C-alpha cells in the first residue's frame, strides 16, 4: 500500500488482538481523597462518595469509546484512591468498614470493575489509623464486592515491620475464615509503588497528583507467539524479540493512555507494562518460559528464564512510553495462569521455586492457594520471607495467599473470572511461631559491601 503502514503490519496488529489475547488490561483512574477527611466518618464517607462519582463519572464510557474506536479491548476500568488509613486518620470512629462500603457503592455507581486503596503504609510502624484500618480488613473485604486492600509492611529504607507481618498473618487467617475470596483482594507488600494500576495492590500514593490516569497493558500471548518463531536461537535473539514485542505493546498502551487522559481531561501518569496472564489458554507467562526451552515451568532454569523475560519486557517498554511506571515486568499469579496451574498439578512447580522466581519477577507470591488449616504464624513467616527478598533486592514484592477453607493439598479452589482457580499447594513443615512472635523491626539492609 502506498501509505506508511503496510498491510502485513496491520494484519500483525489485528492478529495480536484477535488471536494472541493482546489487550489493555486496565485503565485506572487514581484519585486523591486526602481532602475528604473529617472527624465524623459519615461526613467523610459522603465526601469520598461524591468525589469519586464526580471525577470518575465518565471513566467507563470513555474507556468503552476508546475500545471501540481503536478496536483494542480494554478489559477493566478501575479506580485507585489514597490509602484510606490516611483519609480516615481524622475520624473518631474505631471501625472503617463504612468507608469500604462507601468505596464499594461509589465503584458500583460509576460502573468500574474494582476500586483499590483500602490500604495502610506501615513499613516502619503503625499509626492509630493504620491499626484501625487493618483490623477492619476482614469485614471490609468480605462485606463488599469491588474493594481491594493492600498493606505495605516493609521497605528497603525502613526494614521490615515484623509486628505488621505478624498482624497481617492473623488478618489473612480471619479473612479466609469468613470467605477465602476476600483474600484474593488483599495484598501484603514490601516496597509498594504509588502508581500501580493493577489490582489488588493499586492505591493512589501521596506523591501523586489530584487525579491521574494510569494504564496497564498486558500481552503474554503476543510474547509467546513471537518467541515460537525463534526456536533454538541463542538468548540474545530471545531477549531482542521480547524487547521488540514489548515495545509494540507498550506503544499501544501509551496511545490509549494519552487518548483517555485527553478525553477525561485528567493528566496521564504512567503506562505499566506487565505481562499479566489470564486463565485463557495462550495467555500464560508459564508458557513463555516453556517456549524458551523448559519442559515444565518450575523446573531448574525457570528463574533464569524469568529473569531474562522480566528485564527484556522493561527494556522494550521503557523506550515506548514517555512514562513507564507501576510494577512493569512479568506477573506470576498461579491461579490466573493456565500454565502455572498445570505446572503445580504436575508437581513441577513448588512454593519454594515460586519464592525464588519472585526474586526476579515484577512482584511476588501471587494468588497461591494454601491448605485451609494453615496457621497465621506460617502465613506471617511466608510474608517475612517475601518482604526480605524485596527489602534486600530493592524491589517490590508482595504476598497474596488464599487459605482455602476446608480444603487440603491436591484440592482446587475456584475464584471465577480473571482470578481463575488454584490447586492447593503444600507448604513446609516446622513451626515459625516463636520467630514470628518476637515482633519489632528487622533493620534496613546495608547498601555497600555487596556480595
Amino acid at each position, binding site marked *: *500500500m*502506498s*501509505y*506508511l*503502514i503496510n*498491510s502485513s*503490519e*496491520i*494484519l*500483525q*496488529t*489485528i492478529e495480536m488482538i484477535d488471536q494472541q489475547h493482546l489487550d489493555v488490561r486496565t485503565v485506572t483512574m487514581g484519585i486523591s481523597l486526602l481532602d475528604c477527611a473529617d472527624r465524623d466518618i459519615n461526613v467523610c464517607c459522603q465526601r469520598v462518595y461524591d468525589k469519586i462519582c464526580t471525577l470518575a463519572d465518565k471513566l467507563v464510557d470513555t474507556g468503552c*469509546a476508546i475500545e*471501540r*474506536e*481503536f*478496536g*483494542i479491548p480494554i478489559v477493566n476500568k478501575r479506580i485507585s484512591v489514597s490509602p484510606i488509613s490516611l483519609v480516615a486518620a481524622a475520624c473518631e470512629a474505631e471501625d472503617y468498614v463504612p468507608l469500604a462500603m462507601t468505596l464499594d457503592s461509589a465503584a458500583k455507581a460509576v460502573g468500574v470493575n474494582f476500586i483499590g486503596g483500602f490500604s495502610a503504609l506501615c513499613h516502619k510502624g503503625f499509626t492509630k489509623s493504620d491499626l484501625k484500618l487493618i483490623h477492619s480488613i476482614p469485614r471490609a473485604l468480605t462485606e463488599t464486592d469491588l474493594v481491594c486492600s493492600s498493606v505495605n509492611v516493609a521497605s528497603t529504607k525502613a526494614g521490615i515491620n515484623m509486628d505488621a507481618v505478624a498482624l497481617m498473618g492473623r488478618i489473612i487467617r480471619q479473612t479466609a475464615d469468613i470467605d477465602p475470596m476476600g483474600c484474593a483482594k488483599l495484598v501484603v507488600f514490601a516496597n509498594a509503588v504509588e502508581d500501580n494500576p493493577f489490582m489488588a495492590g493499586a492505591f493512589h500514593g501521596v506523591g501523586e497528583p489530584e487525579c491521574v490516569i494510569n494504564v496497564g497493558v498486558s500481552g503474554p500471548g503476543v510474547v509467546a507467539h513471537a518467541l515460537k518463531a525463534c526456536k533454538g536461537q541463542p538468548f540474545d535473539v530471545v531477549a531482542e524479540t521480547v524487547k521488540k514485542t514489548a515495545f*509494540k505493546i507498550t*506503544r*499501544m498502551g*501509551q*496511545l490509549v493512555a494519552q487518548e483517555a487522559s485527553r478525553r477525561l481531561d485528567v493528566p496521564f501518569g504512567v503506562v505499566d507494562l506487565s505481562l499479566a496472564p489470564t486463565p485463557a489458554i495462550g495467555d500464560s507467562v508459564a508458557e513463555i518460559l516453556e517456549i524458551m526451552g523448559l519442559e515444565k515451568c518450575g523446573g531448574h532454569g525457570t528463574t533464569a528464564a524469568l529473569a531474562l523475560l522480566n528485564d527484556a519486557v522493561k527494556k522494550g517498554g521503557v523506550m515506548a512510553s514517555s512514562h513507564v511506571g507501576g510494577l512493569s515486568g512479568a506477573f506470576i499469579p498461579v491461579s490466573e495462569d493456565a500454565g502455572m496451574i498445570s505446572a503445580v498439578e504436575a508437581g513441577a512447580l513448588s512454593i519454594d521455586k515460586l519464592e525464588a522466581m519472585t526474586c526476579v519477577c515484577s512482584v511476588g507470591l501471587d494468588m497461591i492457594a494454601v491448605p485451609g488449616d494453615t496457621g497465621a504464624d506460617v502465613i506471617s513467616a511466608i510474608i517475612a520471607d517475601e518482604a526480605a527478598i524485596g527489602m534486600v533486592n530493592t524491589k517490590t514484592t508482595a504476598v497474596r495467599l488464599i487459605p482455602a477453607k476446608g480444603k487440603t493439598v491436591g484440592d482446587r479452589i475456584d475464584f471465577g473470572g480473571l482470578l481463575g482457580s488454584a490447586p492447593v499447594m503444600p507448604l513446609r513443615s516446622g513451626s515459625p511461631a516463636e520467630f514470628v512472635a518476637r515482633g519489632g523491626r528487622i533493620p534496613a539492609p546495608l547498601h555497600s559491601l555487596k556480595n
Partner: protein
Amino acid sequence: MKAIVSVFAKDSKGITAYVTALLAENEINILDISQTLMQEYFAMIMLVDLTDCTLPFDQLSQLLKDKGVERGLDIHVQRQDIFEAMHRI
C-alpha cells in the same frame, strides 16, 4: 479522521464490490486498498477517510460488523493511529 477497514472471509465472488458499496453509501472515501489471499482466506485492508461519513464512529463500526455477518465477512474498522503507534517510532 482516517481509519483502517479490514475484511476477512473465505474467498468468494463480489466481496470487494459489497464492502466498497457499503462504504460509498455512508460517504466514506477509500484512499488506498490492498488485498491478499492467505490459503483460501481473503484479506482486504483499506485506508479510508471518514471526514464526510454521516454516522458516528460507534454506529459505523456496528453497521459494518452487522452487514459483514449477513454475508459471512469479518469486517473491522479501527482508527489508523493504533497501527502507527505500534509500528512507527
